[in-house]
């Protein structure tokens, strides 16, 4: 189970507290990129529906 300070990334549990701020910013950037991708896919679907 994920708890407040851990996330699953590439199938692995990552304890966020064990990462440096620099590493956390890398993770953040990656999540941002993934989010943009998923949002784009949703937008494409919605465009078809509208």
């Amino acid at each position, binding site marked *: 189970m994920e708890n407040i300070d851990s*996330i699953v990334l590439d199938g692995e549990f990552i304890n966020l*507290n064990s990462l440096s*701020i620099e590493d956390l910013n890398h993770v953040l950037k990656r*999540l941002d990129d993934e989010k943009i991708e998923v949002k784009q896919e*949703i937008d494409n679907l*919605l465009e078809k*529906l509208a």
Partner: protein
Amino acid sequence: MEEMENNAILMDKLTKLNKLEIKKSKVLAVIFQKTTENMLDQKLQSLESNFKEQAEFYGQKLENYEDFYQNMIQKYKEQLLQMISSYKELYVNVYLELQEAECNQKIAITNLKKCSDIKQKLMEQANINKAEEYHQKVKACLQKKNNYDLIINRCEKDLENCVVHFEKQLNALFGDKSTQISLKEEGAIQKMFQKIRNLWSGKTKFNSYVVEPINVELDMMDSKLPDIVNEIGQKTLTFVAKIKQAKSETNRIFEQMI
């Protein structure tokens, strides 16, 4: 069949988006937490080490200043914690608005899909007028979703800015103590002269150049802090009011469109 497939794909994407949003909020929260902790440690450590180095430079024993030292650290820590606490309040408020906006956006997307499905069925039944009504609803839901994109982006930007502003303001108010060290006498002869000078005036100079300025600085900060904390509180209220206004504007546009 295609409708069910599209439903499944959309649900899958929304679930993915939700998971990413949760992960992102966790990472941002840990970045904020770590930044505040690091800054607090850094400021306290530099004050402690600066005080010790100055005492050594003026040939003063730390034991003689134990009460002052403990009181200084305690007061400095309390002031830093006040700043941290007001930024935490700002952070939590921005986060709550973000969470609500993300949730409302997903509701708008789900409603869009529902309206689109109904519209499709009405078209098949050749119920053109009713189908047009649902087409309008689909457009309204899409507009709502797009407006929430703007609100979400604004909240995310403000969450990240919260960390940046906190660092900047803390550095501006609580300067780097490690750079405020008196000239160090490097050579052996200079060191010897400093020792002699310390015998005559070390205590007086330490009091005038170190103890007194720290007292003045702590007192000044005590009088400045309520205004600063109040300013951050105002910033929080202004932000929340702006986002609430944007959300009600989004709802107004939606109502107008359907």
